[in-house]
């Protein structure tokens, strides 16, 4: 399938219904059709990893059954077809993220590797002693630790943008931190821990005015928002396949072509070279310069199938569904005595990720009691320890929703929390 065919396949044949029907969507996800502890599973941990629609599973199996061969090397038909599938997936992801050309998409293992690639390759060449790297307090460890490693290596300094009492990035604080020493500002598009949608375009504008680059951790952006990297105005955008319904171990990094061309390679190996001499080598064109070794072709194919699936559902309808869930969840959970909700109170500023604590009950106990009732949530620091410190908690309970989540699922959560309150009464 070429890029044109991939784009055509994503265009819905019939006019989309005005709203999503989560019960119908539920049928598309075989992983949701099971019980936990004898009760129908309510999966509220999509922020950790999404369930996968049947068409993604079919795409992965279909690739291995019919198109499996190594890419970019073979002269024979099967290898050419495998390469075509891989490059068509790249074109699909480019379109999905609003990139102007497929060459701006580097396939990686996930958001974490995308950020490590930028910190190592771009950071290694552009961040030096005394320079500053600005991170938001909402960042996931994957958008913190690679920068700490870089900063410690080159003698740069990490600066932190604070958040307000509703878990929103303080733009006034960003302005205070920006200076001629700032080399890059790193923020997530949506906080995995709180669900806050961050004003990335505004952050990018301010950072660029100070001469800094902008890295966006888009792990939670891609599944929930209609991402347009060019409209956001950022310099790097990294996504994970598994957070958007694709297979694990796949992901993509977007950056403008000129920026990728300026950057030195990340890892060395096969496929990323042009000529290998006795002492040095020359590099392949972008994006292949950054894709050493045999890539996760099936992962890329599955990720593209997930992107097509989300396009078919329609980003406007996904957003409307999630806003309705956020409103419903905030209200329903707000009725529970002793419950403190973190993150923005305005559903417009967040997605349907509910991070909360209940007085007198530890998040681990809440999660165990919910699990016994078939409700899967996450309890812990959500790989965001600096954020937990800012909130003054060790851990929270997090229930995260997606396209397949219904208000019935939220009702099951609320009922389960009632049980937890009675156990600990």
């Amino acid at each position: 399938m070429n890029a044109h065919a991939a784009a055509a396949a994503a265009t819905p044949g019939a006019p989309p219904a005005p709203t999503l029907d989560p019960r119908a969507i539920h049928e598309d996800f075989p992983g949701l059709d099971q019980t936990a502890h004898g009760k129908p599973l309510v999966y509220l941990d999509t922020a950790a990893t999404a369930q996968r629609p049947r068409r993604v599973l079919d795409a992965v199996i279909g690739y291995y059954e019919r198109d499996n061969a190594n890419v970019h090397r073979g002269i024979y038909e099967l290898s050419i077809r495998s390469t075509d599938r891989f490059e068509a997936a790249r074109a699909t992801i480019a379109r999905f993220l609003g990139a102007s050309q497929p060459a701006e998409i580097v396939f990686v293992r996930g958001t974490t590797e995308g950020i490590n690639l930028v910190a190592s390759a771009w950071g290694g060449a552009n961040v030096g002693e005394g320079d500053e790297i600005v991170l938001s307090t909402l960042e996931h460890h994957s958008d913190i630790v690679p920068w700490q490693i870089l900063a410690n290596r080159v003698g740069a300094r990490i600066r932190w943008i604070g958040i307000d009492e509703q878990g929103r990035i303080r733009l006034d604080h960003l302005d205070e931190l920006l200076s001629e020493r700032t080399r890059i500002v790193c923020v997530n598009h949506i906080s995995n821990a709180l669900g806050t949608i961050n004003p990335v375009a505004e952050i990018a504008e301010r950072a660029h005015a100070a001469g800094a680059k902008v890295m966006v951790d888009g792990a939670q952006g891609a599944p929930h928002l209609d991402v347009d990297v060019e409209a956001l105005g950022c310099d790097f955008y990294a996504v994970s396949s598994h957070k958007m319904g694709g297979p694990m171990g796949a992901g993509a990094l977007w950056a403008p072509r000129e920026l990728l061309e300026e950057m030195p390679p990340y890892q060395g190996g096969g496929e990323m070279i042009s000529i290998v001499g006795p002492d040095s080598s020359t590099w392949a064109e972008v994006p292949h310069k950054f894709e050493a070794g045999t890539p996760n072709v099936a992962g890329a194919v599955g990720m593209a199938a997930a992107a097509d699936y989300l396009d078919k559902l329609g980003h406007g309808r996904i957003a409307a569904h999630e806003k309705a869930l956020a409103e419903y969840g905030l209200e329903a959970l707000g009725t529970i005595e002793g419950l403190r909700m973190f993150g923005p109170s305005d559903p417009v500023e967040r997605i349907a990720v509910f991070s909360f604590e209940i007085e007198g009950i530890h998040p681990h106990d809440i999660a165990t009691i919910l699990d016994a009732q078939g409700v899967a949530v996450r309890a812990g620091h959500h790989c965001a320890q600096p954020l937990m410190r800012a909130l003054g908690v060790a851990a929270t309970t997090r229930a995260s929703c997606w396209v397949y989540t219904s208000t019935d699922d939220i009702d099951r959560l609320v009922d389960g929390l009632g049980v937890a309150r009675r156990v600990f009464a």
Partner: protein
Amino acid sequence: MRAWNEIDRSTPDLGSLYQELILDHFKRPRNKGDLEGASHTAHLNNPVCGDEIFLQLAVDGGVIRDAKFSGRGCSISQASISMMTDMLKGRPVSEAGALIARFNEMMHGDPEAARDKQLGNLRALSGVAKFPVRIKCALLGFDALGQALELEGLGGR
């Protein structure tokens, strides 16, 4: 609204986990606070959940005269360390290793350990063995004990 015993029947595992004694120690932890003149201390955290505990012991003449703890954690970790500190007071240091080993055996599902009177109230935690992800919570205090007394290879990390 259903009563707790009804909930207990519908989800029997929960009842074996959250026994009265455990909830009591969680809500009213014994030996919580700062121990002046502590001779042995350990600070441990559970990186999975961010919980942390600080254990302090006053050892004199080979006997644990007093034990206190501080920090934060779930009901299982807090009840476990509360009961453990209760049990340690007045015991010879030489018995600590065997206690840690026996408790670890119970956590790994050994039915004999779960009946061993030596473990006293701690036997209320035997149900945790059926919740593998929570075993670490129950062991946190015992890991701290092993670390404070510098005991090797007894279930400590």
